[in-house]
């Protein structure tokens, strides 16, 4: 056989098909490993525990007991998903294999992030029987269900994007986990009323705490969605910041390589 012919997309998986190939490989690698499945099961039980507790012990069938603590649970388990996205490749030096394959940095970054988002979506999907329980035994509000799941998906995808960037900066997965979890906690805390009040106190004329809570922390945007308030500003915050983290991830990959 002769070598590949010349041409833009000949000899490579172009566009979305390339990103999906990367995502499928990473998805299978995550499920083949020990960490992701274990974390998935633990996260599933931890996320439904408050609801189950309220349902069986207090007789309350409310989805708010599921959605309220969910951001903090995701802050603990999603960094365990994102930590391996690049750190593992940096440790095993397979990052050079990725660089040698005809993928663009955008395809690699999107593909890896997408594989984490699929795990998140799977975990959220496995919690949907709770909706059935509330429909039968409680007072179900469709907007709360849609808003809650949309908020959880957007917030989780935001955390994964942040974690993917952090993992592209270190070959040590533990470091990636700790740094991501800390950063997520900081961003979430910025949306805490006590935190923004304290920050506002440092510069009352500028109100930095209020600004951070509204425009930097994803917490208020998540809570708005869970409350059934679908606003464009929430979408802009989640998508804009996630895009920034993914861009930083691509920049980190560009170091030394092409």
């Amino acid at each position: 056989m002769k070598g590949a012919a010349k041409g833009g997309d000949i000899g490579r998986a172009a566009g979305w098909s390339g990103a999906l190939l990367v995502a499928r490989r990473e998805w299978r690698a995550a499920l083949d490993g020990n960490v992701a499945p274990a974390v998935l099961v633990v996260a599933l039980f931890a996320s439904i525990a408050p609801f189950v507790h309220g349902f069986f012990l207090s007789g309350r069938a409310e989805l708010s007991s599921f959605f309220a603590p969910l951001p903090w649970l995701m802050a603990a388990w999603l960094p365990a998903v994102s930590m391996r996205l690049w750190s593992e490749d940096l440790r095993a030096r397979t990052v050079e294999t990725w660089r040698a394959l005809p993928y663009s940095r955008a395809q690699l970054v999107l593909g890896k992030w997408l594989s984490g988002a699929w795990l998140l979506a799977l975990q959220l999907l496995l919690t949907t029987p709770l909706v059935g329980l509330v429909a039968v035994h409680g007072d179900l509000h469709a907007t709360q269900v849609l808003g809650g799941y949309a908020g959880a998906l957007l917030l989780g995808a935001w955390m994964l994007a942040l974690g993917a960037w952090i993992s592209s900066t270190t070959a040590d997965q533990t470091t990636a986990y700790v740094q991501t979890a800390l950063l997520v906690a900081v961003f979430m805390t910025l949306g805490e009323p006590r935190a923004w009040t304290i920050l506002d106190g440092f510069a009352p004329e500028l109100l930095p705490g209020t600004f951070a809570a509204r425009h930097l922390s994803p917490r208020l945007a998540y809570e708005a969605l869970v409350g059934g308030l679908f606003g464009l500003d929430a979408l802009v915050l989640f998508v804009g910041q996630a895009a920034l983290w993914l861009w930083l991830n691509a920049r980190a990959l560009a170091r030394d390589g092409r």
Partner: protein
Amino acid sequence: MQPPPFTGILADMPNPLLRAHGLHKRYGAKLALAGVSFDVAPGEVVGFLGANGAGKTTTLRILAGTLAADGGEVEIDGIDPGRSPLAARARVGYLPEHDGLFEGMQVEDLLRFHGASRGLAGQALATRVAELVARLDLRAVLAARVHECSLGYRRRVALAAALVNDPAVLLFDEPTHGLDPLQIRAFRALLRDLSPGRAILFSTHVLQEVEASCNRVVLIDEGRIVLDAPLAVLQAQAKAAGSSIEDLVVERTLARARA
């Protein structure tokens, strides 16, 4: 006085598949490459010799597109990787020094993934994987995960991954490392079969490997090309001087060190 490198013979080579011109690379204070230039034409199998730290791996990584040079130009099959990096990479089969395999993947899945990444699909992908499995004798480990394979098998799996889309330019970094004598023989036969129409550059410390497989030798020392000549010319020179190619290579390296 330092002897001049043999660069004139192939400098005006028509339509080389691989062209490196004036490559520079620095790691902090250390100058890794100081103006590396050479071409590889279709049909050439070039042995890239040099001591540890001479600049072989850095050169190969730059040519494979996994490391950016600080200066200089590369051309792969007429394509400038700076302008079209993906099109250039699609034409290169690269076997890194550490094999760069995804440890947890099954060998068959890994080969299929590399093929799909390089645009193969369906029956064409299945046929190509089957060809490589037969050619590199990988049937025994097809269902095994990479981390379960012996060093020899790992090397051959990595080789299969590099060859999966039948690229025009092949870059091998220490390809025979970890292979037993029989496997090395099989690798030499593979190189002979692959060489028509392709540019092959492989790095090694082993001079016998170059004599057995290559038709040209490029020697790098401290980031500079100090020898670039057809093997036949070197053999004739060694014979005339009553020495060996090894003596010539050592002489060039020492001459550079003295200079």
